[in-house]
């Protein structure tokens, strides 16, 4: 447990340091995710260490967005008079992006004979 937490935080620290020192467009935690995948790939024993903590944290991933969500409520006025237009843009754009992304994925997978097992 402690080793797993240490490994996760150390990866994040490495990711943040790398992202900031090289001013990369990728945020620290995403870079840390890549570092962690590489570590897991080359040290399979590492997976047994991380598994319980990763399962626990990811099982309640939604919870972690609650504090930021509460902050949003106080700033809804930042939308200004353009609230309805912005709301429409968000809703249509999100639906369009999900639709296009999923259809393209499925179509290319079918075209290249890459079906899921």
């Amino acid at each position, binding site marked *: 447990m402690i080793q797993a937490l240490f490994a996760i935080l150390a990866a994040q620290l490495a990711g943040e340091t790398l992202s900031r020192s090289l001013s990369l467009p990728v*945020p620290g935690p995403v870079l840390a995710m890549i570092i962690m995948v590489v570590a897991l790939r080359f040290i399979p024993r590492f997976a047994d260490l991380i598994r319980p903590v990763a399962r626990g944290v990811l099982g309640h991933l939604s919870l972690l967005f609650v504090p930021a969500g509460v902050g949003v409520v106080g700033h809804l006025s930042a939308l200004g008079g353009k609230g309805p237009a912005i709301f429409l843009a*968000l*809703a249509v*754009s999100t639906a369009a*992006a999900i*639709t296009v992304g999923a259809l393209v994925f499925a179509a290319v997978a079918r075209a290249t004979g890459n079906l*899921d097992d």
Partner: protein
Amino acid sequence: MTDFAEIWVYLSREPLLWLTATLGAYAIGDACFRAAGSAPIVNPVLIAVALLAALLWLTGTSYQSYFEGAQFVHFLLGPATVCLAFPLYENLPRVRRALLPIAAALIAGSVTAVGTAVGIGYAFGVQGEALASLAAKSTTAPVAIGIAEKIGGSPTLTAVLVIMTGIMGAVMATPLLNLLGIKDWRARGFAVGVAAHGIGTARAMQVHPTAGAFAGLGMGMNAVLTAILAPYVLSFFL
């Protein structure tokens, strides 16, 4: 016996109260979600946020004092992103086999997300700072804020738009994808991660482990692509 006002003064200064309230509100939201038979419209984040916002308003508590307690939950977003490596690692062979669909869906989804958000906003008279803030709304919050600052958006407005996008994506993904008849969990998860970042990924995790792994991948890849893409798309509208 100590007067309630005195106890309140003590509690409102300590992180304990709002940390407990955050977990409690989420537990209520999650219970509602389960009671509704996991209906996506009953989003646990949305319920928890509404309950807490009402509670803060009723007690006259500022967001700053709330965050003193909630920061412990908020902090875990970073480590949780690192933990997304685990489902990704478990699905590595499938990711490697699906590189072409992944690349195509990433480009198509990302261009659509940025292009339609800015295009529709522009068509309805959204301009300047607000339009620039719309561009990166599908990426994870820290990246979106970084992009917005570079292209003339407002960090606060961007954060608001990112969270709203995530909740919308989480709510609409399942019915929309069912309507489209897409059964491939890789396609479903990846598209949601690209369009609705971490909140969409959290939703995908609830639905299917493969969808969750591909959503985490989509979120990470889209963060990078949007950083490159957003300034170009926005330049068409300025």
